[in-house]
């Protein structure tokens, strides 16, 4: 199949194993985000795919051609990949145009120039071709790096934290432009990031990576956000309210109301995670619990509020609640909090996944194929 296919990859630096039996699939034309905390091995996986690091175990296949296994190593210059680094790695001694034509090996000069100009125009840098990289802003450098990576028409594009060097004000805009350019190029793209918001924005599909490269969950951004299969995945998107409980009759009781425990057996101890937007404040007393407001912080479009239970079963803890910025707690009294089940997730106590995930061995190949099939069926 077209795209990038990695399976059974393990990798160690000395005694430190950073990847253990990892599998990954990037279908042609899709943008896949590898999302994980720093040190989870996601960059290593990218470097292995690029051929910057010799593969110790497993296999890397690009467009049906095996480029690396433990007896085989195709050097990066023969893999026809595009690669973009966090620091862009523009050649400081070359002008913008020469940076972009750098990869057009074997093309005649005029043709290469045209191709480079075309790419630079696409990223909106067509009028900076005679500048040197140090004369450009971070955002401009990023766009040149993108043009340079795409110019040779790679079969696979690898992006390593492509936006983390930009300041926040610029990031959103550049992200949007980059996405446009990538969609137009239609190239299979693997992007590594530690920023969940960025992954949600860019990705057709997100793979959340935990320790030693274990893929905790793979799916569309929607699934990752609304149906996290792992406590770690649920916690990716900011503050969570956490309540411990026990499953009784398929449900867990929290101070704010009862939540379905899904496939978890009765009598099991569980943790219920509720997003701050999953707790609604009303004056409707029936399902919830009475709370008082401790503090309120305006964040812009919404506000984050800290509330404390005034009564209730045992744990009179504090909770975070997200409300619209025009919400005024003074207008409702007494305030009652109750749960929105869509934003509440139940996990077995101790951090394991809710569903019995397939063994790590199948995590890559079998599990991946399954989810792909489902996706294609849906499209």
């Amino acid at each position, binding site marked *: 199949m077209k795209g990038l296919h990695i399976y059974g990859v393990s990798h160690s630096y000395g005694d430190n194993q950073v990847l253990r039996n990892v599998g990954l699939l990037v279908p042609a034309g899709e943008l896949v985000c590898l999302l994980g905390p720093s040190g989870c091995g996601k960059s290593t996986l990218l*470097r292995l795919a*690029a*051929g*910057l690091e*010799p593969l110790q175990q497993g296999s890397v296949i690009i467009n049906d*051609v095996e*480029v690396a296994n*433990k*007896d*085989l*190593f*195709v*050097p*990066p*210059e*023969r*893999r*026809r*990949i*595009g*690669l973009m*680094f*966090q*620091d862009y*790695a*523009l*050649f*400081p*001694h070359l002008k913008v145009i020469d940076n972009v034509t*750098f*990869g057009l*090996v*074997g093309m005649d000069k005029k043709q290469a120039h045209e*191709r480079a100009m*075309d790419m630079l125009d696409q990223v909106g840098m067509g009028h900076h071709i005679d500048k040197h990289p140090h004369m450009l802003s971070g955002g401009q450098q990023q766009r040149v790096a993108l043009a*340079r*990576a795409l110019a*040779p*028409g*790679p*079969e696979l594009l*690898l992006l390593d934290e492509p936006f983390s060097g930009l300041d926040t004000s610029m990031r959103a805009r550049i992200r949007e432009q980059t996405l446009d350019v990538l969609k137009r*190029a*239609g*190239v299979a793209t693997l992007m590594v990031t530690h920023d969940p918001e960025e992954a949600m924005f860019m990705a057709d599909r997100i793979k959340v990576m935990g320790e030693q490269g274990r893929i905790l969950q793979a799916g569309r951004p929607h699934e990752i956000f609304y149906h996290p299969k792992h406590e770690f995945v649920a916690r990716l998107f900011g503050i969570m309210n956490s309540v411990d409980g026990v499953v009784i009759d398929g449900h867990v009781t929290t101070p704010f109301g009862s939540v379905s425990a899904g496939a978890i057996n009765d009598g099991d101890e569980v943790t219920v995670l509720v997003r701050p937007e999953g707790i609604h404040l009303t004056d409707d007393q029936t399902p919830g619990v009475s709370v008082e407001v401790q503090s309120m912080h305006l964040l812009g479009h919404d506000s984050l509020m800290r509330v404390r239970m005034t009564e209730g079963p045992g744990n009179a803890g504090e909770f975070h609640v997200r409300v619209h910025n025009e919400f005024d707690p003074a207008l409702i009294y007494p305030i009652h909090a109750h749960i929105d089940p869509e934003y509440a997730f139940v996990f077995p106590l101790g951090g394991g996944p809710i569903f019995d995930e397939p063994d790590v061995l199948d995590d890559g190949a079998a599990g991946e194929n399954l989810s792909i099939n489902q996706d294609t069926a849906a499209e």
Partner: protein
Amino acid sequence: MNTVALSSATAPAPVRTRLSWLNVWTIGALIVGAIVALPIITVIVIAFTPGDDIWSHLASTVLPVYISTTLTLMIGVGVGTIVIGVGTAWLAAMCRFPGKRLFEWALLLPLAMPAYVIAYVYTDILDYAGPVQTVLREIFGWTTRHEYWFPEIRSTGGAVAMMTLVLYPYVYILSRAAFLEQSVGVLEASRILGRGPWRSFFSVALPLARPAIVVGVSLALMETLNDFGTVDFFAVSTFTLGIYDVWLNMNNVAGAAQLAGVLLVFVISLIVIERLGRRRQKFHNVGGTYKALPGYTLTGWRRVFAIVACVLPVGMGFVLPALVLISNSITYFDAALDSKFYQYALNSVLLSSLAALLAVLVGIFLAYALRLKGGRFLKILVRFSSLGYAVPGSVLAVGVLVSLGKFDNSLDAFMRHSFGLSTGLLLSGTVAAVTFGYLVRFLALSFGSVEAALEKITPNMDGAARSLGHGPWRTLGRVHLPLIRASVLTAAILVFVDCMKELPLTVILRPFNFHTLATFVHQYASDEQFGEASLAALAIVGFGIIPVIALSFAITRSRPGSNGQEGTQ
């Protein structure tokens, strides 16, 4: 569209096997590293091979003298360079007095003077027949040597003085940088806590700069061990002289190699001290950025003292000898030009250029090979082969001599056996041997600067070039070389100048009757004809100034507040 056409343009990617380490880089680096390490390994092997009679003979006669003289010399030069180097560094870094900006770089000038040149000059001046004693005799009416006391320049003390005068810049430059790097806050805190400038210096600044000082002194002592010209001229029996003596006058290579082995013990301890110093230096770097130091403004007698303290080393280590050389050169100009000056100068320049070129090429090759694939064994081998800078020229010379001799003999035997041809001594006693010796001794310089320059280039640059379809060679040519050009040029100049000055290796390895400027100066000075050789000595000093100029530019740039680091000054 375009994209599709492009990606199908190239043939399917060919595939290489796992034995990818079997490439020109790794294998080449292993071979080159082994060849360069060979002389040092040879000396070590011989030193640990059970010796013949000569060894016990040496041990009972000259060895104690060699050891005590060498130790005396090292202690003397060590103390001398610390006092002058640290003292002037403190003045130049922390105090304000007239001429400070001039002294900051002028204090480096003695670095351009080879110790043997300054030794010849001072002997010329201070000898019984020299101008100083002549004037003294005229003033006081003395007529013979026995009527007055005058220090004998041709002595261990004299050698200490000569070497201290030209080697203190090593300590000066490193401790000055260390003082500048110390956070001002630390010193100010010390002042506020009630310690005066002197006590702050001894209790805060000096301990913080200690690692840098240690590195500087160990470099100076390595040069001390390397020196041949001075000790030969002054007849001070150090190891280096002993090696030369045993080899040339007693015609005993094994004995020379065994002496060299003992000398290596001194060297290895210096290397260890230096490495430890460098490691701690990193640890001690308190503040990263240079800040404009407040500086103590000196007044009254302190100001006079500071100026004198800076004038003396520069004057005695550079200005006075340079003036003497110039005046001698003018006096003996015709005689000097007669004496094959051009031939020797050409020899020096050609040989040094060749060595510089080789050192830079090998340095780039090794450093890049390490960058591509830094296997542990290769790393150790490369480190080992760049130990040459610490190993005295005489020791290396013995190593080169023995290993080339072995090579020549086995080649000769092989050729005679297989083809009935005798190649004789193909390399021994040729210019190739000298060049090889230079390469072994100065590879560390070029390798070090290339490696440091490459380290500043992010590995992502390599990754970008490789992913854009360029192999290792083309990446080196199109990305790395243009980026490290300046460092490569600097390295080449440094190696070139060091080769121009080099004496002990050249004296032992050169072909019969072959002279460089350095050996020419040495021979004429030994024959008490220094006047005729002054022009050649002046030429060596002239070349020696080139790196000093480069260094002084670096000094000016590191001056607090300059080059926009502090913006507003």
